[in-house]
């Protein structure tokens, strides 16, 4: 009997110790991290703060971190964010923390501060005045971390505070700035080089060489030339380049006493085209031959414009069609209709999606940057030729970086902890 009693007591004590141990472990699982830190988010306009804390051993997707915020250290704290404990590591924010291996050991999260708001009056579509709140300035905000398993929530003791600060420079964009500065110096250098030596070699672009042929053909046949500057307005670079080429084509047309029709989609592009063609005719000594009605706005909508240009091609039967600029789905419709009229067609676009259609349906096609290079190629202006060479130099630089980067990434697998590799990788990050 005594033995049974002893066994019972031992068992009860063991059970009690086991329960205490489990509850202790359970309580340990729900201990909120105390290594909370806060800093201003770098390279921003003072919108957010970065809080970070070391990860705890018991992290899993069943547990969740909760971020609390308050206007004062005494509270009340409100929940602003929650996520599973196995998410949101510093390695997810390489633009702030880089690519160091230790970034996987702590969490980081961008938090909004408390904002002082101001009332702003604005007018609605109905004409009524409505007052709404707008952010004025960020206030000192207090944060703490909690952890929950769905049933129990434990809030951390440590409270951190901060106010976001506007930064003077976006360090994460320094790679772009470096490249821009390099390109700037390339442009200046090659312009001065082109001015000293105007006979810089430029690869032949077949489409551009065919411009003379096309205008001559149209003059012989006594038919007009059609020129389209594309889908976008003058604010797009491709339209500006197209207008550059239009100036050369217009000069040739004026010299050969042919007719140039320029249907435009946008009114501002139309106005610029009118001025460019007028000046080309004046420079060719034929101001009387300029007809402003031949440069007109067809329609602002894509397919209305397409049908308008198609009907011009079918009625007027131009001998040469120029489609230079950015085009969308109307590319093939224009090119095929032009092909049915028997015209020689020269197209050029920076629109990746339409290049295949122009290649198939047109006699000549300028692909991508050839459109941008065409104005330099035609005019041989030293400034334009110089910038074209600067582009090539920039491309050579990019190729070199690509090759060097590929080699570094390949060998970087063997040197994961090398800091300099991580710095280089962070330098080229775009965010």
């Amino acid at each position: 009997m005594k033995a049974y009693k002893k066994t019972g007591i031992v068992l009860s004590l063991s059970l009690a110790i086991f329960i205490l141990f489990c509850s202790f472990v359970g309580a340990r699982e729900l201990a909120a991290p105390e290594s909370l830190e806060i800093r201003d988010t770098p390279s921003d306009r003072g919108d957010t703060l970065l809080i970070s804390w070391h990860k705890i051993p018991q992290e899993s997707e069943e547990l969740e971190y909760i971020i609390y915020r308050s206007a004062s250290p005494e509270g009340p704290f409100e929940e602003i964010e929650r996520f599973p404990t196995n998410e949101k590591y510093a390695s997810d924010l390489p633009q702030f923390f880089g690519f160091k291996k230790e970034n996987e050991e702590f969490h980081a999260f961008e938090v909004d501060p408390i904002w002082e708001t101001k009332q702003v009056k604005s007018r609605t579509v109905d004409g009524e005045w409505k007052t709404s709140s707008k952010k004025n300035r960020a206030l000192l905000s207090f944060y703490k971390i909690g952890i929950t398993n769905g049933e129990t929530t434990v809030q951390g003791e440590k409270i951190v505070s901060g106010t976001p600060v506007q930064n003077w420079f976006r360090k994460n964009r320094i790679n772009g700035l470096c490249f821009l500065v390099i390109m700037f110096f390339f442009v200046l250098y090659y312009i001065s080089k082109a001015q000293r030596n105007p006979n810089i070699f430029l690869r032949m672009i077949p489409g551009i060489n065919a411009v003379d042929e096309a205008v001559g053909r149209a003059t012989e046949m006594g038919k007009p030339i059609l020129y389209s500057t594309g889908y976008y307005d003058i604010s797009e670079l491709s339209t500006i380049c197209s207008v550059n080429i239009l100036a050369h084509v217009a000069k040739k047309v004026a010299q050969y006493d042919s007719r140039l029709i320029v249907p435009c989609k946008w009114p501002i592009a139309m106005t610029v085209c009118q001025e460019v063609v007028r000046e080309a005719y004046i420079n060719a000594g034929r101001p009387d031959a300029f007809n402003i009605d031949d440069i007109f706005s067809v329609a602002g909508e894509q397919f209305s414009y397409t049908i308008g240009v198609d009907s011009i091609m079918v009625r007027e039967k131009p001998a040469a069609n120029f489609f230079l600029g950015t085009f969308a789905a109307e590319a093939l419709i224009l090119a095929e209709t032009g092909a049915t009229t028997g015209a020689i067609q020269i197209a050029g676009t920076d629109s990746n999606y339409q290049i295949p259609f122009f290649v198939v349906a047109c006699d000549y096609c300028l692909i991508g940057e050839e459109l941008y290079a065409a104005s330099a190629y035609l005019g041989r202006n030293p400034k334009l030729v110089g910038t074209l060479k600067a582009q090539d130099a920039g491309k050579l630089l990019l190729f070199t970086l690509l090759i060097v980067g590929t080699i570094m990434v390949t060998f970087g697998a063997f040197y994961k902890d090398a800091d300099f590799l991580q710095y280089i990788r962070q330098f080229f990050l775009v965010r």
Partner: protein
Amino acid sequence: MDFFKRKLPLVIVFLTGVVMMISFYVPHTPFNQIWDGASNWYQIIRSFTLVIAVVSLIRSHYRKIKTGKQGWGYSGIMFFVLIVTAVCGIIPDSVHPVFGNKSGSLYMWIFDYVNTAAAATVFSLLAFYIASAAYRAFRVRTIDATIMLVAALIVMIGRVPWGEQFSELITSRISPHLKFLRLDVLTSFFLNYPTAASKRAIYLGIALASVSTSLRIILGIERTYMGGDD
């Protein structure tokens, strides 16, 4: 006069370009406010270009009707449709349910059954033109053309159910090791690798050309947008 027509626009472009470049890299006040303000200005100016578009359209079609040019009747139809659509869209539906831009209004009816139908019809012309262009242009004239032809055939057949079934029949069913020869797998390969690589190369070139052209415009080397040469 030459200063206002030639020099002042260049100064404005230069200053705007430089300030916007600085604002892109400096988030501090006042540059962030300049950036926001410029974005808002750009939105407003873009909206006003729509007004210019309508005014230009009205002017050119009015001139056509006035001079009695060929096709002036269509210009009349254009005016009629313009006025009806604008009136129906601007008047709120509180006046009458036929107005406004909610579903069931005249404005939406014009959009659904005139605009959408006409635009979709013109867009569907592409199907016919692609067929005739494919017949005319896809010829094995050179090695490059042959490669393009073979790739086009593989992608065209690989993207449709019959192609997937047919290629599965002659590859995977014979041996699982031949799966890589399935047309849909080859199509995916073409789209993910050669096509993506060539697109990236073209994008790189266009991006560099955009940087150069933008620098030319900001520095005043490129002046075509003003409507003339040097």
